[in-house]
């Protein structure tokens, strides 16, 4: 139906535009304010424009260790990402058939998604302190974050496998592939693009996780904790500069992600350049 647009279309378009402005308002505010002049503060008006605060960000900080925190968050993000992908795929494979206890496990995973983060944080913190273990972003922090990223990864995998035709695996087995070969040569390449999505999800959920890391990160801060800490000590637009940089960094991550997908698609289509030249 490409008839004339109904009136509701124009109303909804306007609504959408307002929504986008609402959504982007803060991001843009941050963006602008991060270019405050050296004299400027966290609020409007702008006192000149400069890259001063970005520059500051790269100098040694008066307090804290932004770059250390960034490195930790990045590393943690990558680890969480890898584990999320691997564990979710495994669990997704397991749930392709019914097994005893599947329902219980399923609801446990859903619970993991809906239970308030602060409770997980508190609980993990308590366990570690009562057991006399040291909380560390690589142990308790990692675990607490996984309780958040795994359900997402798992649900995505369920969705993927819901639509995965088992005939492909049967075909592979028919061809003599072992379970592992079937997975390695058939299932994995086919779900790979979606796995990139799971990976991206895992990374960003971890990279931006605050509440679950709060009581579980131990003596060294992750980036969100550091940002939170900065609100305690840094009263300058440097905070916004950091915000702008993290946003840009996120863009780069998505860019790489989309780029990878596009590249893969491109490579696929190039393999048969005579496509469409005449089919039976």
């Amino acid at each position, binding site marked *: 139906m490409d008839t004339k647009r109904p009136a509701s279309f124009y109303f909804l378009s306007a609504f959408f535009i307002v929504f986008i402005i609402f959504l982007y308002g803060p991001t843009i505010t941050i963006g602008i304010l991060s270019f405050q002049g050296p004299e400027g503060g966290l609020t409007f008006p702008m006192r000149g424009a400069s890259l001063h605060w970005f520059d500051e960000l790269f100098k040694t900080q008066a307090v804290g260790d932004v770059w250390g925190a960034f490195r930790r968050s990045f590393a943690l993000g990558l680890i969480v990402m890898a584990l999320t992908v691997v564990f979710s795929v495994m669990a997704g494979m397991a749930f392709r058939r019914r097994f005893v206890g599947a329902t219980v496990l399923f609801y446990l995973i859903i619970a993991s998604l809906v239970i308030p983060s602060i409770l997980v944080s508190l609980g993990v913190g308590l366990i570690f302190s009562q057991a006399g273990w040291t909380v560390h972003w690589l142990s308790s922090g990692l675990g607490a974050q996984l309780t958040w990223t795994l359900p997402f990864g798992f649900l995505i995998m369920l969705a993927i496998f819901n639509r995965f035709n088992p*005939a492909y695996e049967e*075909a592979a087995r028919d061809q*003599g592939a072992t379970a592992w070969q079937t997975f390695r040569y058939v299932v994995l390449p086919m779900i790979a693009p979606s796995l990139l999505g799971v990976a991206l999800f895992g990374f960003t959920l971890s990279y931006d996780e605050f509440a679950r890391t709060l009581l579980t990160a131990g003596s060294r801060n992750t980036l969100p904790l550091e940002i939170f800490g900065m609100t305690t000590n840094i009263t300058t637009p440097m905070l916004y500069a950091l915000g702008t940089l993290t946003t840009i960094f996120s863009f780069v991550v998505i860019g790489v992600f989309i780029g990878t997908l596009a590249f893969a698609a491109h490579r696929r289509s190039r*393999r048969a350049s005579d496509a469409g030249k005449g*089919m039976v």
Partner: protein
Amino acid sequence: MRSPNDLELVAVTKRYGDAVAVDNVSHLFAAGTYICLLGPSGCGKSSTLRMIAGHESVTDGAIILDGRDISKLPPAQRGTAMMFQSYALFPHMSVRDNVSFSLKLKGEDKASRHRKANEMLELVGMGHLADRLPDQLSGGQQQRAALARALITKPQVLLLDEPLSALDPFLRVKVREELKKIQRELGISFIHVTHGQDEALALADEIVLMNNAVIEQSGSARDVFNAPRSEFVARFLGGHNVVSLEGKRYALRSDRTRLVTPGDEGLDVSVTSHEFLGTHVAVNVIGPGDVELTAMVPEEQFYAAPVEPGDSVRIGWTAQDLHLLAG
């Protein structure tokens, strides 16, 4: 005339929980024949095929090929190969890679496996498309690629689950000829599941007609068509009327059911509808006891003396065309 390459089902049963999908079926599939497994939806055709292929476990019974019970072996070691309904070509591999996949798993080097794949693709007339990805192929081409992939494992028995259902009617007729040709050239058995009786009749050396988890009748296409054992078979194959005469039930081919002039032996019936089928016109009539019958009248004959719904007519047959049904 048993040969060691025959495939034999011995009292094979398949249960899903409480439901019986295949019930104690025994059958000998002779080597080198084109077999069609025919039957209505849910009768257990796919289950049977998948048990032979090894994609479904056998609840009970044995499957014998080459003198050994293959029912516990993994699919690839059975000497069977399967072609899937939606072809299940690996979408991320080129046609050549799809076809040579099993060779790769066996560890053959690239050159040799590509050579063999190319040969196989030539056989199915797909040599020029070996570099394409599956989604760059039409339905018929995909079908042939899948065939090549199944055949490269040199199976003794090729299993096909509704291989033509994804094709449009025009293509379907073309492709089924090719299937038959390839089977004849290779001399191996094809077991082809379908619920289209025309497909089965056209292709099969032997038709195995299933219903309700058991084999209802089997035999050559011609034997089954001309001598349906039961009312179900007669109705399912189509082209038959079932008439009750003196408490007995007979199958009567509808092309042997004629419109006759009053006075001849036959039944007085009334026309309900007629369908033009090109060369013939199917005249549907309803007779005493609400029995519905169809007479296939050659087209020019029909239009020479057309009848319309509501008309009373008389249908007749030759006694030797009546075929007594069991049960």
